[in-house]
C-alpha cells in the first residue's frame, strides 16, 4: 500500500486543491468507509451516498481541522455520525450486539483441548497446540493462507471484521480504531480478541489438516 504523507502535509495539500493528495486519501480509506457505513444503513447504495456525504463534510470542514486527532480518525468520526444519522432517518436501528456479534464471551480455543473440571489439573492443556514454528515460511505465505483469512473477515460480525482489518491488516493504533469506530477501550479489545481468535482457529484448521508438506 502507498504510504500517505503525514497529516499536516496532507491537510495543507487538500486545502490547496491537490487532487493527487485527495485521491491518495480516498484510496486508503474508501473501502473501509463503505463497509462501515453499510453497518448502519439499509443497503449498499445508501452506504455509497453516506460515504459521499461524509467526504463532502470532510472537505467543508477541512479548514477547521485542528489536528487534535489523526486525520483518518477525524474522517471516520464524520462518517460514523453521518451513517448513524442516516440510519435513524431510515428507521433502522443497529444495536451494538448485532454489529459486534453474540459470541464475545465464547472460548477462543476448543474447550476439548483442556482438561475437564474434575481432573487433577483443571484447565491445563490435554492436547498441546501444534508448534507452528515447524511450518516452512513458503507454506505459511501460500495464497490459500490469505484466502482463509479473507474468508474469516467475510464471515465475522461487522464490527469484529472492521476492528481486525483496521488494527491488523491496516496497522491502525488501538486509540485510532476506538475513536474512529466510537468504541470503548474494552469493547475494542474484546472485538479484536474475538476476531484474532477466529483467524487463529481457521488457520489452525487449515495448517493442521492433511499434509503439511
Amino acid at each position, binding site marked *: 500500500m502507498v504510504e500517505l504523507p503525514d497529516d499536516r502535509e496532507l491537510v495543507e495539500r487538500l486545502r490547496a486543491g491537490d487532487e493527487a493528495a485527495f485521491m491518495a486519501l480516498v484510496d486508503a480509506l474508501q*473501502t473501509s468507509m463503505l463497509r462501515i457505513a453499510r453497518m448502519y444503513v439499509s443497503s449498499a447504495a445508501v452506504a455509497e451516498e453516506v460515504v459521499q456525504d461524509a467526504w463532502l463534510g470532510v472537505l467543508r470542514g477541512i479548514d477547521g481541522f485542528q489536528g487534535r486527532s489523526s486525520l483518518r480518525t477525524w474522517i471516520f468520526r464524520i462518517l460514523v455520525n453521518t451513517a448513524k444519522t442516516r440510519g435513524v432517518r431510515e428507521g433502522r436501528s443497529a444495536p451494538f450486539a448485532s454489529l459486534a456479534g453474540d459470541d464475545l464471551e465464547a*472460548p477462543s480455543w476448543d474447550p476439548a483441548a483442556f482438561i475437564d473440571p474434575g481432573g487433577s489439573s483443571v484447565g491445563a*492443556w490435554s492436547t*498441546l*497446540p501444534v*508448534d*507452528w514454528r515447524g511450518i516452512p515460511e513458503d507454506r505459511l505465505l501460500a495464497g490459500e493462507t490469505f484466502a482463509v483469512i479473507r474468508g474469516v473477515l467475510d464471515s465475522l460480525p461487522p464490527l469484529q471484521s472492521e476492528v481486525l482489518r483496521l488494527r491488523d491488516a491496516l496497522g491502525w493504533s488501538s486509540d485510532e480504531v476506538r475513536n474512529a469506530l466510537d468504541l470503548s477501550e474494552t469493547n475494542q479489545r474484546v472485538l*479484536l480478541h474475538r476476531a*484474532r481468535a477466529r483467524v*487463529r482457529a481457521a488457520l489452525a484448521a487449515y495448517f493442521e489438516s492433511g499434509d503439511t508438506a
Partner: protein
Amino acid sequence: MSVTDDIACREMVELMSDYLEGALAGDALGRFERHLAGCDGCERALDQLREAVRLTGMLRVADLRPSDRDRLLGLYRAWRAGG
C-alpha cells in the same frame, strides 16, 4: 510462587491478545509471564496467535473500483470550484 497463584492454560489463551496489546499490567502481567515461561503449550498458543496477527498484516487490501475513484474526484473538483 504458590500453585493457586497460577493461571490455568484455559484462561491464559483468553489473555493472550491483551498481552500482545500491552494491556496486561502489574500482578496480572507477572502471573501471565510466569506461567508462560514454564508452559510449552501456552508458548505455542501465543506463537500461533502472533503468527495469525503477522499473516493478517500481510493481507492485500482490495483496490477501489475505478468508477468510485472518478466519482470522488468529481466531488473534489466540484468542491474546489464552489470554494
